[in-house]
């Protein structure tokens, strides 16, 4: 049995890692739950965002924050454009998964073509920044990522709950025909949501660039965990996604500390399988 400090430390790093899971899960959860589109492309977009942040930082000398601010509108447009394709071809839930898989492969190939398959590391002074909390060690960047995820999740929740756009989106997800009969312009709102979700991928990408080592194929590594987070959190439920992200992050890092690092994936996937099979009354 590891010491209490080690256990505490693994809980802290699990919570922080979970924030990044939640950040990636947000866009997927929104588009799946509200637009009935399962968009694998978010992983690719997040990595594209990460590489762009890296490029603007190492070659252009831009601070990561400025880089992300520049990338945000670009990604918003990309998200809207992709949704235009979906609408034009009347893409359904399942087809969206296949099409966005294709999109992911294209983006992955382009990244690999331009930046090669080698590992890239974006060295910034922030990476080593950290502070101590009693006996525990808290890296500043990870904390910031986690706080950003929490802020975005809360903001999105409030947006869906209290604004007209949010209510209209939720009504359209329940029953598009009835919502349309009540004058909800589903299409305009769907474009807005797609853009926002893609912009979230840019934010996640900025943090991925700062925190982890980049390689094009890494985007597939996030797939399973993030899907687990989306399902466990409940579709179109930002707070749920945040909670699920933290839960999975902690359970993974505690498993790494207590058992062995290589067993970590078993935790999130077993939780996912258990929930799918046992959870009653879920859609």
């Amino acid at each position, binding site marked *: 049995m590891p010491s209490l400090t080690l256990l505490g430390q693994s809980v802290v790093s699990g919570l922080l890692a979970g924030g990044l899971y939640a950040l990636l899960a947000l866009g997927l959860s929104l588009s799946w739950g509200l637009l009935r589109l*399962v968009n694998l492309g978010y992983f690719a977009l997040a990595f594209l965002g990460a590489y762009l942040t890296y490029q603007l930082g190492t070659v252009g000398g831009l601070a990561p924050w400025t880089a992300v601010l520049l990338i945000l509108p670009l990604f918003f447009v990309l998200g809207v454009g992709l949704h235009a*394709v979906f609408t034009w*071809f009347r*893409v359904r*839930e*399942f*087809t969206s*998964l*296949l*099409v966005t*898989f*294709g*999109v992911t*492969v*294209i983006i*992955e*190939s*382009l990244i*690999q*073509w331009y930046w090669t398959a080698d590992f890239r590391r974006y060295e910034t002074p922030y990476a080593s920044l950290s502070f101590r909390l009693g006996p525990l060690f808290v890296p500043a960047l990870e904390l910031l990522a986690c706080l950003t995820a929490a802020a975005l999740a809360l903001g999105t929740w409030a947006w869906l709950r209290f604004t007209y756009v949010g209510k209209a989106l939720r009504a359209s997800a329940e029953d598009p025909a009835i919502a349309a009969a009540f004058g909800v312009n589903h299409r305009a709102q769907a474009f807005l949501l797609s853009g926002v979700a893609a912009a979230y991928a840019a934010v996640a990408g900025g943090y991925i660039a700062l925190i982890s080592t980049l390689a094009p194929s890494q985007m*597939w590594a996030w*797939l*399973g965990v993030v*899907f*687990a987070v989306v*399902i466990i959190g409940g579709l179109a439920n930002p707070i749920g996604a945040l909670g699920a992200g933290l839960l999975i992050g902690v359970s993974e890092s505690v498993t790494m500390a207590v058992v*062995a690092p*290589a*067993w970590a*994936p*078993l935790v999130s*996937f*077993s939780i*996912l*399988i258990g929930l*799918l*099979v046992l959870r009653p009354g*879920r*859609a």
Partner: protein
Amino acid sequence: MSGHSRRVAVGLVAAGLALSALPALGVPAFYESFLFLVFFWVSLATSWSFLSGYAGYFSFGHGAFFGAGVYTTATLTAGFAVPFLASLPAAAAVSALLAVGIGAVVFRVRRLRGELFGLLTIAITFVLATIVLNTKIDGGPGVYLSAVPLPRLVASPTGTMYLLGLGLALLSVTTAYAVTRSRLGLGLFAIHDDEDVAEVKGVPTFRYKLAAFALSAAVAGVAGGIYAVYVSYVTVGETFAITVPLYVVLMSILGGARHWLGPAVGAAIITASLYAFTGGNTAVLGRAVVALGLILVILLLPDGIVVALLARGGAWRRRGAAAPTVPSRDVPIATAHPLLAAPVAASPDRGPVPAPTSAHDGAPAAAVLVCEDVWRAFGGIQALRGVGLSLGRGEIVGLVGPNGSGKTTLINVISGHYAADRGRIALDGAPLTGRPAHAIARLGVARTYQIPRPFGHLSALDNVALAATFGTVPCALVAARAEARAWLDFTGLGRRAMALPGELNLHERKFLELARALAARPRVILLDEVLSGLNSAEMGSAIGLIREIRGRGTTILFVEHVMRAVLELSDRIVVLNEGEVIAAGRPGEVMRDPHVVQVYLGKTHAA
């Protein structure tokens, strides 16, 4: 054997013979290796379609079964010195058992369909990978198989692998063809379109899904076993990578997942195009081009290349043929079908429809269907509260009541779609309660749906043939199709046999519902508002049809709001209100019952 199957068999044998001669011709090993990869992907993609293409249970976990095969062969040959070929049946068995184990749990949960099933299978793949990585099966460094002796089918090792790959590819494509032409295949197609209806029409959905899953996994397992020795060094990372399930899905969709040859064509195209871009940066860009092509095909040809080509070929041939037959869409049913003409010609080997032993005078004869004290709740809503009723042989009983009174729920409970919470239902003394819906259908209960629920991708003929082949007198598909034609003629849909349900109008679809119910040769038929939405001419022909059905000795319980029809047809009427039977008896008496009037029209009118 039909002409089509003979042509397919000849084609497969010819292709097999021609391709198996290749190693003897001294072709460079490069081509053998390339073709081996094509065969490998053909086998994997085709096996995936058994469950996921035909039954619509999209699995992203084909890598799990492939991986189970890889590691079974790796463990047996490297660890226990089992001969390579002897390890392949074991690989098939391990993968099939894994599938049956997963299916036995997952297929019992109704909501685990669609994308949730897909996710579940991804998760299972990762769990399996983690277990293999962290146990002695692999342990981390991978397993070397280069020392495993190869059987010498031909002189060169690549030739031997080529022949094994060819054999497996032929086996899987032949299996695919056989399945799509069988009752199993028809049942799986029906599950794809509407699983609940398939079950109610007599398809043992749970068993069929398990069978398809096991078959699919077994082929993937053998493919894994062969591939393990082909690459001669296996790692968890490569084996359980996302590439296997995703390529398999894409190949099948590209070619057409519901066609027996579709996945094979898709696999050949994708493998060849990936191979065309090898080496350096062209490989990377090539992958992007393949992905783009894939997006375009999915968006533009959603049914796959093979189906699109067949449709085009069909249209071309029809244009060439003389005197195309115009579908008789607007011919009134009343004149189109011979209501009072000769009875349906039952196919000789199945015997005649049981003769009527009816009681037209209204007194219940020997009870066929008995419900006693049937209860059913949905959450807090008590939909049925101790319903009791019995149907005499050959009777027509009208079941009426306000909306929400539990009529359709009662039909759903009798047909087994919902289980009763309490109470007893019996058909000719045999208890129905507790039996699965498909077993109830086989015992002789058929139903129609108020809003027709035909299998959207099956022709009208196959919709009816499915009911016949899984009905009370199970029969082979060929006999079932012949029988289905007779029932389509009986309901006036004879000329629409090859139409898809989407091409039928509402009253044709309602009559298709009837034909499906009749083709099962039920003892009791439950009609759920067959008349609603029909105009008065159509209604007249429907009423005639219902009489005709009773004339053949079938007992009928029909739910209806059209009072004219209820009074005209029913020997007895049962009135349901808030889940309770409040009146039962002859039509005239029941409709004068003050309680019934009150329920229908409100208190003031009851006086």
